[in-house]
């Protein structure tokens, strides 16, 4: 294996790319975390509304009771769907967080290595 004579600019470019990869993973991880938080809030609201309908049902008679039953059925299906979606989103968020951890570790190690061989200055490393 031969090392190209101009390995230094190539290494600098790789370092920049590793850092931006880590940043992209961080942003994606944060976005998914926010999504999970929103989904959780939405689910809690839907669960509370469903519970309220279930609490009221025994006190309602006639045609209106049938409507409530119908609504409970629809909302139960919706809540179950939301739970499944939240579970999948959490899994994805976990994967992305791990990917961010790996990318951040690699970018940090690469920065340390670059500093050690004076490929970049302290200022450039911190940028």
């Amino acid at each position, binding site marked *: *294996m031969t*090392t190209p004579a101009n*390995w230094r600019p*190539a*290494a600098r470019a*790789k*370092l920049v790319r*590793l850092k931006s990869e880590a940043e992209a993973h961080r942003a994606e991880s944060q976005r998914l975390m926010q999504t999970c938080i929103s989904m959780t809030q939405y689910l809690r609201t839907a669960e509370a509304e469903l519970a309220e309908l279930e609490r009221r049902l025994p006190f309602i008679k006639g045609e209106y009771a049938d409507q409530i039953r119908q609504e409970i059925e629809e909302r139960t299906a919706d809540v179950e769907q939301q739970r499944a979606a939240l579970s999948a989103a959490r899994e994805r968020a976990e994967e992305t967080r791990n990917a961010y951890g*790996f990318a951040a570790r*690699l970018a940090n*190690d*690469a920065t*340390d*290595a*670059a500093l*050690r*061989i004076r*490929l970049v200055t302290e200022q450039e490393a911190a940028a």
Partner: protein
Amino acid sequence: MSQKPILTLGEIREEIDEVSEQIERTKAAGLPEAESLASLKATLSDASVTWQKFTGTAADALAAGEEITAYRLLSVVAPSADKLALLGLGAAVAPRLDAVIKEIQTEAKKRDDGRLRLLPGEKAARLLELRRRLYSLEMAEAEITEATGEKRRANCNAAAVLGIPADVAEANKLLTEVE
């Protein structure tokens, strides 16, 4: 002119695992039996000599009709914690030094786990050779992942990913440290 066989990413990673294991085995290598035994003999002999000095000091004090205190005896032969430990060890082994060494050798044979045995210089040389080999594999791995976009190994070497040449990496202590 013979050409080096081109390895696949999977083959390179298998070899990385193998070399990493060799590095761990080498790091765990003990001294050759003769050297290890010589250090045991030297330590126990040192302890025995300390014990003999202690009994000599006690005998002198007794012959001179001194009031013998622990401070008087220990201040001569065991003025530090290390020396005191050596004195204790000497008291235990001095009367039967050769027998103790034989017993330890017999017990050590039962416990021999077949680990590598190397002199310090040999160990350092072998570790350097293995780390150089590992780094060249990591460079090859990084080239492939760079070209194909394959997922990087979780504990890939950042210096190799950057493409820092082996001689520069070695001079700057960037060859992989296998934990």
